[in-house]
């Protein structure tokens, strides 16, 4: 299925769009691609795009003054991406958005989205619904990080994305799960074999 169709299908899961509106909406999303380890959004920039992932894996991460990274979000097909709080609040991003593998995405600019939101109330509704779901997702992830054992966290990730071990260096996955890289290797050996 091509990426515009995937986008439409994904949006329909969040909001019951009519055909004409989803068609108009999806026409404004443009394809863009990146190589591995490219920064899509820089820190302190205002995120100008909402992304939809067609191919590859990306991450939103925080970098502290000591150079330590915290991988906050992993994005991969099919989901939205970008530094979304910066996008919606129109404030400088506190995080980086980068590719972990070669990636193909669709994107829509903030200004275009504003025009569409004003023209089609469904799109406005949709953005709200998507935001509420994203917020709910963040709370679930906080539960995982604080309450799950390393093994449980690892299993959850494998359920959501079984192929990710073959696409992405382990260090990013370990960082995302809040697990020490050495312990992460031990976990894989223990669980997979």
């Amino acid at each position, binding site marked *: 299925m091509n990426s515009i169709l995937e986008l439409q299908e994904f949006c329909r899961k969040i909001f019951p769009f009519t055909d004409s509106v989803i068609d108009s909406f999806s026409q404004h999303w443009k394809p863009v691609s990146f*190589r*591995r*380890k*490219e920064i899509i959004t820089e820190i302190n920039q205002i995120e100008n795009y909402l992304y939809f992932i067609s191919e590859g894996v990306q991450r939103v991460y925080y970098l502290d003054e000591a150079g330590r990274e915290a991988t906050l979000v992993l994005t991969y097909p099919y989901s939205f991406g970008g530094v979304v709080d910066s996008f919606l609040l129109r404030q400088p991003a506190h995080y980086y958005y980068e590719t972990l*593998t*070669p990636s193909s995405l669709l994107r829509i600019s903030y200004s275009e989205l504003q025009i569409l939101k004003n023209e089609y109330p469904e799109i406005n509704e949709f953005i709200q619904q998507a935001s509420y779901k994203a917020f709910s997702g963040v709370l679930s992830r906080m539960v995982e990080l604080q309450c799950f054992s390393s093994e449980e966290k690892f299993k959850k990730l494998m359920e959501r994305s079984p192929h990710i*071990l*073959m*696409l*992405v*260096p*382990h*260090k990013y996955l370990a960082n995302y799960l809040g697990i020490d*890289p*050495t312990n992460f*290797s031990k976990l*894989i*050996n223990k669980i*997979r*074999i």
Partner: protein
Amino acid sequence: MRYNVAELLNTLEFQTEHQLAYVIRYIQNLSESELLRHPDDGGWSVAEVVIHLNTYGEYYLPKVKSAITLTPVTGSKEFKSGILGDYFIRMIRPQTGTKKLKAVKQHQPVAIENPHEAVSTLIQQLELFLIYCKQLNGKDLACIRIPTSISSFIKLRLGDVLLFFAGHVDRHMMQAGRLTGNEFQPLELIADMRNVR
């Protein structure tokens, strides 16, 4: 050999991407015993291949990194290999160097404490190499010379170091491919470019 700089860096990036994808897909998820297993002919295990590659990264990558800051931005679109650079590159690339080579002492793999950590290091090094290739766009690749790890009297142009490094990784990826049973085919792009004058 003469190269177009933009094409050269582009090719090196694709070459490294290909190597990274292979290591992530076929090597990083191997079990410790699979990594440590020696082939019947008594050659290196996958872990030893990885550690050998790491010794090159440990030596060359910091030098490439400082070369990037020292290298001027250039108007020249061309990079010309040095004579020795050409020789070493030809020798190390699997497509052109068919002779069996023996690793020198400082690049012999030592006792392996943590094979998975070694694989992690290799991945980190390949990612860095990728990033350095991106950062070198538009820069002069002949200006800075880097002493080789084997003899500090021999200095190679930065561009030649990059070509040598990538060719060396290709060579050992093919070796790893034979060990794991998942064949590694090096990208042919550089081979094609070497016919361009």
